[in-house]
């Protein structure tokens, strides 16, 4: 998760869509890694099953990533206020 936060912090001029894309990409690769560790091939899962797991992973990743995203644009103003 630290890797993702570091990556997002470096994306200073990125748009909201670019942040989302980075989080989605990170969540996807983490899920594939988890499945591989469990001895499961992605193709053996139904689309619904895979998407459910992916959404959970994206949710977990963005929960932590939002803190890093505070450091951009208008959010920087909010951060400066304390």
């Amino acid at each position, binding site marked *: 998760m630290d890797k993702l936060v570091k990556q997002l912090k470096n994306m200073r001029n990125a748009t909201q869509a670019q942040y989302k894309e980075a989080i989605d990409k990170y969540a996807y690769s983490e899920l594939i890694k*988890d*499945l591989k560790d*469990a*001895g*499961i091939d992605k193709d*053996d*899962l139904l689309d619904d*099953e895979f998407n459910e*797991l992916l959404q*959970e*992973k994206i949710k*977990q990743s*963005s*929960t*932590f*990533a*939002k*803190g*890093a*995203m*505070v450091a951009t644009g208008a*959010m920087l103003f*909010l*951060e400066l*206020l*304390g």
Partner: protein
Amino acid sequence: MSKILLLDKLLSQYKLWTVKLKNASLNIENNILQKDSSSKLEEKIISLGISSILVYIGSSIVGLFGVATGGFGAIVLFIIGWLLSKFINKKIFGDERSIESIRDDEKLLLNTLVEIDNRHKGIRDTMNSANNSINFTNYPTLKRELNTLVNLLTTYDSSSLALKYKYKHLYVTNKYKAEVSRFDEIYAHKKGR
């Protein structure tokens, strides 16, 4: 043949279940440690809202007496609102908690979560590595462990948590309970045959 297919299906389901159990455990741990950093953003938005409302109400009340509050007065009201919101936010969102600062019963709960995750990861690894392993054994013991954990979760004293995490604890506990029910469907199905 159908029994072999059923076994393959249950083995795949169990492996997938271990991934879901790990997710459910992580959600509980993050909630107890109040790790949701998205709160920072919510906090600031609420702070701005409270401060602005205070400026509006304060200006309106003073305005009733025919005195205009602009500039300095509004800034003072905003600062008061901002400080007030800090106190309110602390109650609602709290701060991230370190492992060292939590109570012993909370440490026990988190340790039990990790132990159960590791136990099932071990079973899964055995399934993946051994060709002729006997699968789905020790159901009563595994079930008892999960029940003990569910009991710890349902009797958990959430008084140390901020409001947001107190309510979320019920949600993450229910998610975990759903995984325990799913364990019965997968693991006991084989056991009963």
